[in-house]
C-alpha cells in the first residue's frame, strides 16, 4: 500500500462562547455581526483532521488535504491557528459558512472540490469530516459527498479506525446507549464522519505552521467563489426561544437540608 490520500472536510463555526442572535438578511437567515464573530475550526472536523494526521503518520506515503468552504478572509484568520496543528494542504472554497445554508449545495461543492484535486487516486482515498457541524448540525453532508463521489462505504460517529497492513480497516461507530458498532471494511475508498475520536488537540508547532502556510496563502488566493446558500429551504422563522429560568439560589442551607431536598425532588 502506498499510503492514503486523506481529504478532510471542515470549515469554521462561531466560537462556542459567543452569543448568537439570528437576523434576517437578503440571502436568508444569518447571525448578527456574523462577519465580526470570532471563529474556530468546527470541533468535529477538527477531531477528523487530527485523526487524519495521525493516520497519515502511521501509513507512510499518505497525504492530508483540508477542504474548507468559508469566507476567504475568515478562512485566512482561521488558518493562522489551525495550520500550526498538523501538516495538510488546503483546498479553499470562498463562500458562506452559515449554519443556515443547505447541506445539499454544500455537499455538492465539497464533492466537486475533492474530485478536482490533482492526482486524486480513489483506490487510496479516505474522506474524513465531522459527523455534523456545530453550525448547521444536519449530519447529512458527508453522506451526500460520499454518494456524489461514487463511494459505497460510509461510517458515522466514528471514534476509532485501525488500519491493517493490507489496507483493510476496522471502525468503531457510536450508536445508541453509549455503545459502539464495530465494522470492518475491505479498504479505501471510504468516507468517515468522525465524532471526537481519541486524540487530544495537538500543540501548536510553528514549524508545521510555516510549512503549511506556504500552501495556504496560494490556496486562499485562488479560492473559487462558491455560492452556497439556503438552497431549497424556505425559512419562516429563526428565533431564540426564551429559556431563562427564575433560578432559586440556596446559599445558607445545611448539607443535610440540601441532600433531603434533592432526594425528595428525585423521588417525586
Amino acid at each position, binding site marked *: 500500500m502506498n499510503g492514503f490520500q486523506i481529504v478532510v472536510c471542515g470549515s469554521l463555526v462561531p466560537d462556542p462562547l459567543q452569543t448568537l442572535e439570528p437576523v434576517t438578511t437578503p440571502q436568508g437567515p444569518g447571525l448578527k455581526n456574523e462577519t465580526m464573530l470570532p471563529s474556530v475550526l468546527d470541533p468535529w472536523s477538527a477531531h477528523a483532521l487530527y485523526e487524519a494526521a495521525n493516520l497519515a503518520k502511521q501509513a507512510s506515503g499518505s497525504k492530508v488535504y483540508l477542504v474548507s468552504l468559508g469566507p476567504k478572509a475568515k478562512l485566512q484568520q482561521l488558518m493562522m491557528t489551525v495550520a500550526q496543528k498538523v501538516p495538510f494542504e488546503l483546498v479553499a472554497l470562498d463562500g458562506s459558512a452559515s449554519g443556515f445554508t443547505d447541506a445539499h449545495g454544500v455537499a455538492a461543492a465539497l464533492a466537486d472540490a475533492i474530485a478536482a484535486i490533482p492526482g486524486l487516486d480513489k483506490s487510496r482515498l479516505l474522506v474524513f469530516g465531522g459527523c455534523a457541524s456545530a453550525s448547521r448540525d444536519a449530519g447529512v453532508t458527508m453522506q451526500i459527498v460520499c454518494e456524489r463521489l461514487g463511494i459505497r*462505504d460510509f461510517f458515522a460517529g466514528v471514534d476509532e479506525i485501525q488500519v491493517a497492513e493490507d489496507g483493510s480497516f476496522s471502525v468503531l461507530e457510536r*450508536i445508541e446507549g453509549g455503545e459502539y458498532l464495530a465494522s470492518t471494511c475491505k479498504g479505501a475508498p471510504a468516507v468517515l464522519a468522525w465524532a471526537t475520536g481519541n486524540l487530544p488537540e495537538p500543540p501548536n508547532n510553528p514549524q508545521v505552521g510555516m510549512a503549511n502556510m506556504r500552501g495556504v496563502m496560494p490556496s486562499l488566493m485562488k479560492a473559487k467563489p462558491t455560492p452556497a446558500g439556503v438552497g431549497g429551504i424556505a425559512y419562516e422563522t*429563526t428565533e431564540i426561544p426564551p429559556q431563562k429560568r427564575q433560578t432559586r439560589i440556596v446559599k445558607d442551607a445545611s448539607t443535610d437540608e*440540601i441532600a433531603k431536598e434533592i432526594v425528595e425532588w428525585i423521588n417525586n
Partner: protein
Amino acid sequence: MSKTLALLHTQADGSLPKAALETLTAAASLGQPFDVAILGAGASAAADTVQGCGAAAFHTVDDPAVAQPRYATDAAAAAALIQTSGAELVLAPGTSRFARSLPGAAHRVGAQIDTHIVALSAEGGAVRAQRWFYRQRILGAFSRAARPWLLLLDTGVFAPWQGAAGSAGAQAVSVAFPDDDRRTAVTGVQKPAADAQTIRPDAKLLFVAGAGWTKKQKDGQFHIGEAGALILDFLGKAQASLGSSKSLVDIQGDGQETLTFMSHMNQVGQTGSTPRHPKGIATCCHGEEPHAVGWRFINERRAVNLDPNCGWAQGKADVLYVADAFEVMAKVNALL
C-alpha cells in the same frame, strides 16, 4: 396533500425501536393517508405488530443483506422502499442507523433531507418542520417545495404509537445488492460491562459531573478516587444517566488522572450529546453556555456548585445549591 411514508427499521431482535413507534405517531398526526415501510431482519413480522396504526399499505425489505446496519445496503433498501411507495413526504426515526444511511438514500432518489426535526405540522397540504441550528441555540421553522422530502425525527418528541397487532399483508420489495455494497461487514456491538454502563437514554434523571470533581478540594488535596466512588454509587442508586462537561473528558485525553469511567461518549453540550431526560442535576460544573446548550431538552434542572455566580445561577437552572458537591452527594447517597 403529500403522499406520506413512515420509513422504519427493525432492531437486531426483529422488534421495532421506540423511535420507530414515535414516527408512526408523527405520521398519523399529519391527518393524511400514509404507508409504512420497514427494513431489517424480521421486517414482515414487525409490520404485523403495527398493523393497527392506520397505514394504507405496508412494504418491507428483510433480505439478509439488511440484517446488519450497514450504510450501503441500508441506503439501497431505503431508496427502493421510497421509490416503491411513491411517497413525496418520508418520515423516519432519527436513530443512528437511519442518521447514517438515509441521507445517502435521499440522494439516490433525488430527494431533499432534513434531520433533527422537533416539530411537524401540515396545514392545507403544506408541511412545516422545526429544528435547531447552531446546536440547540436557534430554533428555525421551515418548509421545502422539493419532493420527495425526507424528515428524520428526533427521538422523544412524539409519543410512541400503541395499538393492535394483526396481519399487515406487507408487500416484500426485492432489492438487488451488488457485491460492492458488502465491502463492509458489521462484526458486532461493543457494550460497556453491565456495571460500567453509565449512559442510560431512558433514565428519568441526568447526572452531570464537571471538572471540579478532579480539582484540589478545600484540604488542598485531590480526591479523585472518592469522587468516582460517590458518582458511581449515586448512578447505581438513582439509576441516573451520566453526563459530563467537555473540560472533564478533555482532562482524560490530556493524560491527567481523572474519572476512569468517563469518556467523550458522556459529554453533553455543543460538541457532545443533547439528551432528553425529565430531570437533570449538575455537580461541580460551571454551566457555561457551550455545555448548557446540551441541556435544552432537560425539563427540571438543579445544580450544586460552590460558586453562587456560576452559569447555572444565570437562569439556566431552576435551583442552584451553593454547597460542596462531595458533602452533598455523600448525604444524598446515604438517603437514597
